[in-house]
């Protein structure tokens, strides 16, 4: 398989526009992992980050390779080897009742960061948000294991149903000031770790790429209101999501989403859908069932079901679905606003699942399907932390269609 970097459209013109997003997404995923393996081989340290607020815009300014442990963990499940890692973590002392992502990752670290897809570099620091509280407990494990700095970007989300603070209000300004102060502290921390001086023009560059991605992601999600649906939110959507996380704030990520919008607009204009017969339009709530990723999808597509939307594409994009555009004239202030609005949305989309599902489904004329993998204990309104153990963990999976 040729790994394509840079301007994908011009370097590989043979890629047909229909299905191009999946091909390019898969290529980029391999690029990401190959770069991590290279970094590990060269003893280069990485920034460990999470999908709900990676702060890639800042970290890319300092040239940190980004490790997304959620993604490396779920890959062990997709590749059907999660149980090996989970067992290592449980033997070490972790309870069967805690998050499977965390345990798979601990298993990876206890195996010297050897992963089925390559080698993961050591952390230089970890940057996380409070979008998932387990992030904090997870990062504390690396903090102990490697003695690295742990930076929690605290993003206050909605306090009460229906009471989200809006831009222009004093409450919003107060939250924004808090986030901005922390971003400035993060910059200082990165300077201290790397010995590099912060370059605000490079931040403008990463913000511009992130803007392209935010605009593109929002547009792609909107386009799937088309009939027939243009992409499968469960399978194709997860590929796009991978790029949106791993390549946030980069030229490759920007170009990928420009290409993806072009592909989806082309498909919409030509009535090209994902399957020959779209009998049932489905909205998926929760996290893809990674241990049976393909088969789970087929269980529905075989009967004419098409996943036109997934809440996963909202919250696991760190709120990129909001389409927030950074203001290059005030990059740090604008990054704070964007982080607050986007990460808050990723948190609130779980907080207000009941309305989110109804609205999303209605917009897309879809029935809502809720999948709650059994060990997902942390989220009351919707599950987002399934165990990534193989089939036994799904023995209690509840799927309701309403």
């Amino acid at each position: 398989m040729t790994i394509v970097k840079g301007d994908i459209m011009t370097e590989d013109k043979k890629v047909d526009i229909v299905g191009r997003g999946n091909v390019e997404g898969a290529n980029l995923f391999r690029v990401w992992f190959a770069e991590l393996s290279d970094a590990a081989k060269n003893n280069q340290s990485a920034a460990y980050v999470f999908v709900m607020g990676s702060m890639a815009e800042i970290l890319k300014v300092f040239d940190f390779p980004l490790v997304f442990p959620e993604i490396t963990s779920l890959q062990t499940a997709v590749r059907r080897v999660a149980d090996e890692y989970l067992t290592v973590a449980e033997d070490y002392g972790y309870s069967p009742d805690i998050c499977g992502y965390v345990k798979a990752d601990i298993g990876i670290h206890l195996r010297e960061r050897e992963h089925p897809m390559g080698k993961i570099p050591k952390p230089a620091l970890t940057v996380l948000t409070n979008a998932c509280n387990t992030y904090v407990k997870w990062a504390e494990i690396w903090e102990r294991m490697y003695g690295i700095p742990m930076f929690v970007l605290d993003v206050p989300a909605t306090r009460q149903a229906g009471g989200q603070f809006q831009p222009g209000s004093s409450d919003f300004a107060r939250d924004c000031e808090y986030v901005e102060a922390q971003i400035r502290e993060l910059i200082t921390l990165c300077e201290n770790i790397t010995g590099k001086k912060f370059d605000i023009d490079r931040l403008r560059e990463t913000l511009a790429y992130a803007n392209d991605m935010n605009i593109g992601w929002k547009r792609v999600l909107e386009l799937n209101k088309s009939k027939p649906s243009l992409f499968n939110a469960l399978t194709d959507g997860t590929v796009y999501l991978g790029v949106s996380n791993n390549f946030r704030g980069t030229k490759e990520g920007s170009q990928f989403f420009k290409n993806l919008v072009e592909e989806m607009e082309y498909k919409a204009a030509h009535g090209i859908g994902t399957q020959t017969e779209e009998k049932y339009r489905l909205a998926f709530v929760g996290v893809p069932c990674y241990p049976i990723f393909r088969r789970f999808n087929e269980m529905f597509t075989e009967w004419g079901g098409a996943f036109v939307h997934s809440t996963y594409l909202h919250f696991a994009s760190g709120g990129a679905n909001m389409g927030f555009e950074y203001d290059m004239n005030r990059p740090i202030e604008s990054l704070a606003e964007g982080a607050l609005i986007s990460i808050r949305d990723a948190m609130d989309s779980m907080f207000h699942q009941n309305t989110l599902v109804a609205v999303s489904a209605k917009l897309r004329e879809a029935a809502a399907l809720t999948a709650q993998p059994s060990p997902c204990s942390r989220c009351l309104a919707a599950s987002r932390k399934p165990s990534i153990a193989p089939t036994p963990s799904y023995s209690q999976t509840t799927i309701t269609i309403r």
Partner: protein
Amino acid sequence: MALQLFKKWQGQSLDWIIAECREVVEDADFSTVKRWREARGKVLGHFQVYFPEEIAHAAGMLPLKMRGAAIECTHSDSHFGSYLCSILKTSLELVLSKKVELDMFVTHPICDAARNLAAVWGRNFDYPCQILYLPQNANSAASVTYLRDEYARVQADIEAITGNKVTEEALKNSLSVFNENRSLLRQLYEIKRRQPWLISTYETYLLTNVGGLIMREEHNELLKAAISLIEARPVKRQDKIRVVFEGGFCEQPPLDLIRTISQSCYVVDDDLLIGLRWILEDVSLEGDPLFNLAEAYLEKSSYSPVQHDARKPKEKMLLQRIADSGAEAAIITAAKMCEPGLEDQVAYTKALDEKGIPYFVSEFEESMTSFDQMEIQLETFTENILFG
């Protein structure tokens, strides 16, 4: 003094007071809260671990610690998935079953489940159900100011409910009442550390716990009476090991589990209901009371698995607690399905292994009723230390 919600203890023996405290703590009908409401008092229910109760107190509300109960869930089960800790379910059960009626509910981002409790609660009740976003970045220079403003926001909501403007004077008075309360609790724990044979952890737990169910002025009077009785207690020292109990920061172990441990060991320090003892020093009465309260939360406080602070690695804090209390062993517990507690259990046991400190590991749930097996295991554990 504020309305008396508890039976009179004046002139009663310590054993009588302890027995009455157990009645109140185990009372699934929350009679103290009902008495308060009958007197037209408003109630603010706040979920574990810490809430600045002074703000509700200054507005004339009863700050009620929602810390679950040993009850069967018949209403709340359908609102939650199965993989959740018990305290969430029983806390909601208390309000759905109308055993407790509130005028406001506040939860905190201590874990995903607790944070989302505001949403679940809010779908069932018309009164404000919200999150107090206690800072998760305890090490940011901006955290104290942010928290001060967050307290002001909550204060405004409380004022809207009660119709009472919280004056600076009222807030400072409340700070003073709570400073005294924490000081008395520190005295209680100091006795436990110094002369653990005078008061068991089962007893200190009951005396502490009742404070979350009555007004603090009344609790202060109760503690003063109890402390003088404890100090005069004619009890001899027994041959028991000194241990620290860790794991009671949120969901509370069943009373009989705590009693079982008390029978086998001298628990010289613990983290039971740590929120009531979170602030370790008096909050200053000079200057802005909300700022002082926020600063105390971050700068003069204890530790728990649900607050990350680079200055307070949990396992080092535990080792410090063990050293400060002169304990020779630790009991490391966690509530079932408690992600933060279960994760830190590993860090604790690794640190204890490294230091060669013996420990006993266990899990608990509010609804546990049988402790025989644990009693036998604990006896073996203590005998190993005493005679090993």
